[in-house]
């Protein structure tokens, strides 16, 4: 049985179903990250000093300044991946398959670079004793960036599928495949959008 409204638009919504589905999913994601941002505001406004001083008498503030270049680099990488993601979709619209493969490959590579930089950042902080239990800021930092990192890993899995085995759908249903790339692109841009707010909140405004 064929699933309806994969390509053709519904009369009532004016959208194909997966596009409506992804926007509803993104709405729930906004609330998920919104809840954590709300916790951040509550804990920050209630703290006498920010970032708080841990039980060992140290604050993470000096280390945050050291990691600003890494976080700035990661921001540029993620913004770049958003551009290549949208260009992958444009390439499919123009039926330029080699370009699609190239842009999708760059997007996946950017996502991997982001995670590698994050790994070094985490290692450095943990090595210096700045673990989630150190203070409220570190707990929020690992929760927010960890959840965002999980979204990056999820994105890499889906993007790699559409770059590799999932690409065979193009031969059978090109329009449906193009819509799938648009939908995964919306998810990816949302992940970028969350980082745009995390970057100043966690690294710069302390």
């Amino acid at each position: 049985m064929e699933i309806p409204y994969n390509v053709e638009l519904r009369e009532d919504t004016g959208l194909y179903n997966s596009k409506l589905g992804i926007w509803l999913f993104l709405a729930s994601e906004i609330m998920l990250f919104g809840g954590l941002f709300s916790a951040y505001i509550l804990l920050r406004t209630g703290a006498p000093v920010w970032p708080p001083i841990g039980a060992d008498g140290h604050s993470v503030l000096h280390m945050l300044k050291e990691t600003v270049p890494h976080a700035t680099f990661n921001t540029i990488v993620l913004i770049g991946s958003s551009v290549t993601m949208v260009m992958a979709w444009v390439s499919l619209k123009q039926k330029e398959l080699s370009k699609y493969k190239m842009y999708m490959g760059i997007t996946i590579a950017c996502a991997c670079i982001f995670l590698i930089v994050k790994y070094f950042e985490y290692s450095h902080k943990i090595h210096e004793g700045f673990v989630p239990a150190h203070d409220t800021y570190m707990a929020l930092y690992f929760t927010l960036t960890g959840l965002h990192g999980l979204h990056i890993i999820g994105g890499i899995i889906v993007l790699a599928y559409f770059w590799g085995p999932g690409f065979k759908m193009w031969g059978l249903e090109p329009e449906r495949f193009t819509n799938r790339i648009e939908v995964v692109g919306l998810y990816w841009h949302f992940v970028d959008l969350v980082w745009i707010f995390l970057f100043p909140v966690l690294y710069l405004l302390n």
Partner: protein
Amino acid sequence: MSVKDMSHHIANYRNIFIYLLIGTALTVIASYMDFNVQDSIAGAIFVGLLIACIKGYLVAANFMHLNSEKKIIYWILLLTVFFLALLLFIPLLWDLNNMSNQINY
């Protein structure tokens, strides 16, 4: 979409990429500048979040095509933003409540 439309889109995406890079540079530069008002960093927070909001708008409007979407998506997002604002407002209500308790006792 025609080839002409697509080339217009590509040029637009390239411009947005440049604007986002400029925005990122401004965010970092602004964090080293002194916007403090009476020993409070509220000014720096305002400037940092303002730039983040502009960058967020550029991504949502152009890459996510929210500048030309169907009505139902705007309604979904409006409802989400309403509840998000409520969620972000809760900490403020908490603080106000604590302040009024301190006055009462």
